[in-house]
């Protein structure tokens, strides 16, 4: 009975803390500007099913892709087992779903195989990061915390799977020995192998191990659940909405700035109504996270720092400072900073800092807008749109374009071409043979 009460209290606390953080992150994302992203719902569902659920962009790199599918499938499917564990924890039962019989055996057997695959995949991931030291996991922006974050996640998953399999192994032995309430249920393709190492142990020890692993596993899951909102691992939740709200336009298209359209129309036609859209004047482009859209902010929280974007970025691959992953990490870190200050000091609070304190001009101007990053991202994050919005701010609010680009603007203004050529010479290509 005491165990049940402890379980219910801890479980409720974990859920409450998690939902507190989900609300906090939702609030921060909503600090962004509005953008309409709910047209063509059918296409959006299709995109989400294909990209997030179907992992279509993960498998373009088969090794990481397939290992990730193991972990992902394990995570989703083993949750059915967590449901049983929760019911057992609340009701004080043991293997409450056991009456499902053969189907139960099938479920437990599948969970075991998945658990083993998760274990193995995480081990390979750890090796890739720490032994093989794949380049994209050790670039400049991968400072101490992002690297630890990744390792904490992988080690936690390995520990959870170990606890789950050890729990099953001791349960399996106790079932064979017909000890107490350990009724015969489930099939144990993996843990029966583990059990052979534990067969010398007394039944009392096995009960202790089984109970310890049961508690370690479920408390570990609850703790991990609450770690995720502080970690890059939040992608496990946001990749679904983030792909649903994907940009469905051709990637080559940059969005139209309506506040500029209004001004340009006024310039071209003074009789146009200056109050046509009388929203509060809006900054041109983005200096800080508040100038980005909520989708761009959701992108930032959906990023799990895999670095596929950066590993295909032509600027980064030729030694420039720009890294699309860093753009996303900086956006998220700045939003966390600004959001927490707002929580403390009120909605209008600004600390005088901005996203541009984290992202330098050298990074922003190195982008070729080639869309390799957006194509590579497994959850359809768009770092390019942030880079362009930062450029817009620099150019239109601060006249901060590099001198050569300033010259290019002048040439377009003066002679309708980005080079110094006379408009009258435009047709010379026919005669210039």
């Amino acid at each position, binding site marked *: 009975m005491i165990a049940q009460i402890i379980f219910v209290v801890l479980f409720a606390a974990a859920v409450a803390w998690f939902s507190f953080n989900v609300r906090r992150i939702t609030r921060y994302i909503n600090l962004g500007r509005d953008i309409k992203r709910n047209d063509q719902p059918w296409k959006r569902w299709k995109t989400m099913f294909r990209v997030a659920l179907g992992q279509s962009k993960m498998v373009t790199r088969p090794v990481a892709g397939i290992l990730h599918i193991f972990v992902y499938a394990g995570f989703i499917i083993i949750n059915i087992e967590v449901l049983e564990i929760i019911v057992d924890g609340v009701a004080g039962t043991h293997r409450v779903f056991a009456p499902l019989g053969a189907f139960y055996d099938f479920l437990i057997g599948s969970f075991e195989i998945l658990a083993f695959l998760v274990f193995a995949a995480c081990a390979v991931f750890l090796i890739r990061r720490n032994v093989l030291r794949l380049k994209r996991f050790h670039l400049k922006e991968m400072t101490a915390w992002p690297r630890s974050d990744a390792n904490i996640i992988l080690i936690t998953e390995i520990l959870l799977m170990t606890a789950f399999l050890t729990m099953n192994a001791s349960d399996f032995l106790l079932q064979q020995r017909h000890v107490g309430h350990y009724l015969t249920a489930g099939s144990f393709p993996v843990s029966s192998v583990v059990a052979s190492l534990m067969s010398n142990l007394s039944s009392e020890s096995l009960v202790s191990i089984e109970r310890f692993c049961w508690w370690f596993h479920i408390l570990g899951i609850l703790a991990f659940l609450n770690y995720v909102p502080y970690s890059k691992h939040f992608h496990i939740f946001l990749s679904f909405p983030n792909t649903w709200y994907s940009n469905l336009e051709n990637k080559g298209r940059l969005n139209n700035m309506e506040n500029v359209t209004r001004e340009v129309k006024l310039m071209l036609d003074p009789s146009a109504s200056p109050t046509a859209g009388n929203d509060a004047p809006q900054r041109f482009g983005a200096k800080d996270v508040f100038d980005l859209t909520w989708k761009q902010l959701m992108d930032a929280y959906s990023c799990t720092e895999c670095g596929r974007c950066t590993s295909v970025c032509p600027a980064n691959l030729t030694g420039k400072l720009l890294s699309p992953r860093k753009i996303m990490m900086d956006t998220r870190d700045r939003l966390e900073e600004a959001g927490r200050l707002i929580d403390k000091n009120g909605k209008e609070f600004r600390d005088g800092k901005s996203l541009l304190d984290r992202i330098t001009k050298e990074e922003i101007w190195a982008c070729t807008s080639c869309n390799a990053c957006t194509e590579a991202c497994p959850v359809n994050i768009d770092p390019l749109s942030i880079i362009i919005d930062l450029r817009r701010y620099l150019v239109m609010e601060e006249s901060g374009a590099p001198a050569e680009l300033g010259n290019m603007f002048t040439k377009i203004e003066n002679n309708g071409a980005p080079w110094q050529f006379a*408009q009258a010479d435009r047709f010379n290509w*026919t005669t210039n043979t």
Partner: protein
Amino acid sequence: MDFKVETMAEYAARGETPEVLFWIGCAASFDERAQKVTRAVAKILHASGVRFAVLGTEESCTGDPAKRAGNEFLFQMQAMSNIQVLNGYGVTKVVTACPHCYNTLKNEYRELGGNYELVHHSELIQQLLDQGRLKVEGGHFAGKKITFHDPCYLGRGNNIYEAPRSVIHKLDAALFEMKRSREKGFCCGAGGAQIFKEPEKGNKDVNVERTEEALGLSPDIIAVGCPFCMIMMTDGVKSFNKESQVQVMDVAELIARAADL
């Protein structure tokens, strides 16, 4: 040119409308190397009996480099005045050999009142070949090794990967793919207004990285479909002193030569 390229104004004066507007673009109007591509496209259109017209001196920058460099004001000024000209002539269909113009005209003029059907020249050439309006002899390129460099704004930007390849397949040449091709194509380094400035500090130029990849296949020809890629890849080939062995050519030039135009 052994035929007259007509302007929209001339068509309008006769009260006629051409089948398609050939949008040249700044690079293809002024850059001497790119002008050759422009002439090749014009010859192909003419030889296929396509009734096309150009804007001539009425054309102006689409605003693409301004928009990508963050100057939305300048972009929209350009866009609105171009739309006025295009809509004034009742233009509905546009062909261009510049993927940057293609992208801007197709995707970024819509909200400002410009709705046009856009065709990249490789798509139009493919159609003309498929319809039999244009015929090529493969002989010129028999046994040649060609690799195609995907322009970002044609490929990833607008999902056109097959048209230029299917055009190259009409030649008796062997098409070799670089490891980074199609969706994974690697930029030439020109886009996003980069071509108008010095690159940021790094350890290599983007075009050199890309050319190195292409040269790894020991091709006879690096085929492109964009005037900016043409400039960047040509410079890249020069940086390896390979200009006597490897040619950089637009798909239109390949076809024009194969068709003896």
